[in-house]
């Protein structure tokens, strides 16, 4: 089967590219590729996360990998189909903006698996298509517990905290994955102390760093000492603000500690890395199955909270225990984390 695919891929290449055939289809390992959304690599988020999963698989010798970046929405289909024509066995499309395009690409290239990261396909899913979505609210919940505990009970542990019991969130745009994160975050904080004040601001763009910073500063002015960023590149501004004003930021999607090791308390992890890696692993083992939506959550190991790094000593064992309990509760189904603000009684 594998050999056959490579042969087909090689034939396609010869016809498609003529003499200038690219070098990437020559190894005997399956060739796996990803298409970024318009944010591209370096977003410190989904795109980077998936890419890390690909690199991890490559490091383990499971596959050879390639990334292709998109600059506008019309890039998506040519990128997705082009990679298949280039011999890719499994193509990841990153971001929910590609939902339509990836379905069409899958229809176009039946011999290649397509995985839509952050996509959910309703109805009958083509047999070479996999929807990968996440329960972000569970990651938000864990971060909310940490934030709620620290700001309420352990604010004396760090000069960066205050006694006001206010935490914040900066949103890029008001869209459901962001809303799920936020709902989980609020629910987590309230599980510690129902009277906690959680404030949030939407910046209106996933790429306006200066405004992201300004929103975080505004929240800090109102007493928030821990702020989660749910704003993509604008979220870099939240970390900028934390560095400048000296409060704690919580990263999202991937571990953003490296951006400001002294101020990023932890990060709510969405396992784009893990999910991509798991799918490649299935592919290499020949067990990859298409035609379904896979929702990755805490239970599947795709949702987690990042380590505290140098704050490990500041965060008391009680907090870590609370996180562990929540994890167990969620995994076992004892805790159901709300996924919309409406469930929390917050009007939008």
């Amino acid at each position, binding site marked *: 089967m594998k050999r056959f695919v490579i042969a087909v891929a090689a034939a396609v290449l010869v016809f498609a590219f003529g003499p*200038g055939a*690219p070098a990437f289809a020559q190894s005997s390992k399956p060739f796996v590729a990803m298409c970024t959304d318009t944010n591209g690599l370096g977003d410190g988020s989904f795109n980077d996360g998936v890419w890390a999963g690909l690199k991890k698989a490559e490091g383990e010798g499971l596959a050879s990998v390639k990334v292709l970046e998109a*600059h506008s*929405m019309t890039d998506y289909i040519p990128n997705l189909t082009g990679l298949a024509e*280039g011999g890719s066995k499994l193509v990841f499309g990153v971001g929910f903006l590609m*939902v*339509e395009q990836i379905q069409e690409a899958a229809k176009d290239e039946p011999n290649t698996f397509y995985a839509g990261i952050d996509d959910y396909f309703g109805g009958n899913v083509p047999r070479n298509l996999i929807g990968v979505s996440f329960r972000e609210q569970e990651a938000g919940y864990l971060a909310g517990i940490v934030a709620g505990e620290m700001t309420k009970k352990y604010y004396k542990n760090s000069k960066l905290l205050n006694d006001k019991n206010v935490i914040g969130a900066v949103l890029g*745009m008001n869209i459901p994955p962001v809303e799920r994160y936020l709902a989980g975050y609020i629910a987590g904080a309230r599980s510690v102390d129902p009277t906690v004040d959680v404030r949030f601001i939407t910046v209106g763009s996933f790429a306006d760093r200066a405004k992201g910073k300004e929103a975080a500063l505004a929240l800090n002015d109102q007493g928030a000492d821990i702020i989660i960023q749910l704003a993509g590149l604008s979220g870099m501004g939240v970390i900028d603000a934390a560095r400048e004003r000296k409060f704690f930021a919580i990263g999202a999607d991937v571990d953003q500690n490296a951006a400001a090791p002294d101020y990023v308390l932890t990060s709510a992890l969405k396992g784009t890395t893990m999910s991509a890696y798991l799918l490649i692993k299935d592919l290499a083992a020949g067990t990859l199955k298409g035609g379904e939506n896979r929702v990755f959550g805490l239970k599947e190991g795709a949702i987690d909270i990042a380590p505290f790094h140098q704050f490990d000593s500041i965060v008391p064992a009680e907090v870590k225990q609370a996180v562990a309990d929540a994890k167990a509760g969620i995994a076992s189904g004892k805790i159901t984390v709300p996924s919309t603000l409406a469930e929390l009684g917050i009007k939008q």
Partner: protein
Amino acid sequence: MSTRSVPVSAYRIVAGILTFVLAVPGTILYLASYFWGAWLLAGACAAYLADRVLELGRPAFFSLVRSALRRSAMPAIGIVAALLLGAAIMLATGYNPLSSYKALFYGGLVRGWSVSVLNATPLLFTGLAVAFAFQGGFFNIGAQGQYFIGVMTATWIGLALKLPGIVEIPLIFVAAAFVGAATNAIPAILKVKTGAHEVVTTMMFAYAISTLSPVFIRAFGGDPSHSMHPYASDTLPEAAWLPTFKSFLPEANYRLHIGIILAIACAVLVRFILRSTSLGFKVRAVGNNPMAAKTQGISIPRITAASLLISGALAAAAGATQVLGLDHRMYQDLGAGYGWNGISIALLARNNPIAIIFTSLLWGLLDSGGRYMAMTTRTPNSIIEIVKSIILFLLLAEMLYQRIGLSLRAAFSRLRRGSDARTGIEKEIGS
């Protein structure tokens, strides 16, 4: 000089019919990647030229051809020079220009031709929108906003009404054009009443519209708790989709829809309006000299408004085409830049609607070829943006050529005359 009317011969009628009969299917076939359609187009060209020869007589015809060649020389030189400059940049930054360009043109013209055409479709409309406003002396920098208004209108009606396509699609276009025109009424009124510059107002409107569009999408995006991909609205019923080329040409790419035909028809229509109608005549008069137009009884506010409204309608039609033809739903604005690109396309075509057909296809193929290039070589496709701006720059900088021409001439004359006199190279331009 040949004003004597040549009696309409049977040959001319035949040539005329032949031109039309060959050109229309030729265009459609070529656009659908049936490249042999080029032969039909060549035939149409031959028939057209024959017709012109018959009409004008040989000497006048050849002088016409000469002047046409002279006029197209500059754009051709500009494009080649821009590509050379782009190559120089690639060389300087360590990329291989030869393989890049090979991939660019193979990708844009052959391999991804259907994508080029898909790219060109909305750009053709927005280019026409910008050009129409330009012709009336107005800079519609916010075509992007009207584009999204068109998208919203099409989505709304498409989702709200369940009519047969033959009724619904025209209805959607009319409604989108109407609402797009209405959107532009505000900047038009502000311009006429307060003098607020349209560059600022239309731009800000575009920002505002794209900021507010999520509110709209949420209203038509089904239940958010079930929707995993909220940036898009619900899908339109298939009855409201534009027919695809595939429905009559089986080999065509299945995404290719007849929007491009509508766009080309629109370009022809715009040319007709501008050239052959009283309104277009007045728009051009106001755009070229508002004072003279005014003293001849043409109402400036009315014409300004009319050109702006038509411009808004065209930009909105771009949005409607994109929804009905390609996306079948509304996506949130990611700064796709149809407005900005529309400006480039109109400028490049010097606001000539027919030329816009070609400039939008050029832009479309540079985009899709650029992606193919990025896919198959290591060259980043942002080089295409650079090449595009150099093309624009070189095609609009007429002075540059006059300068070069003058200094070349001066250099020649110096060579000829030796060094006896310092010939003053003056930066003269005859009036």
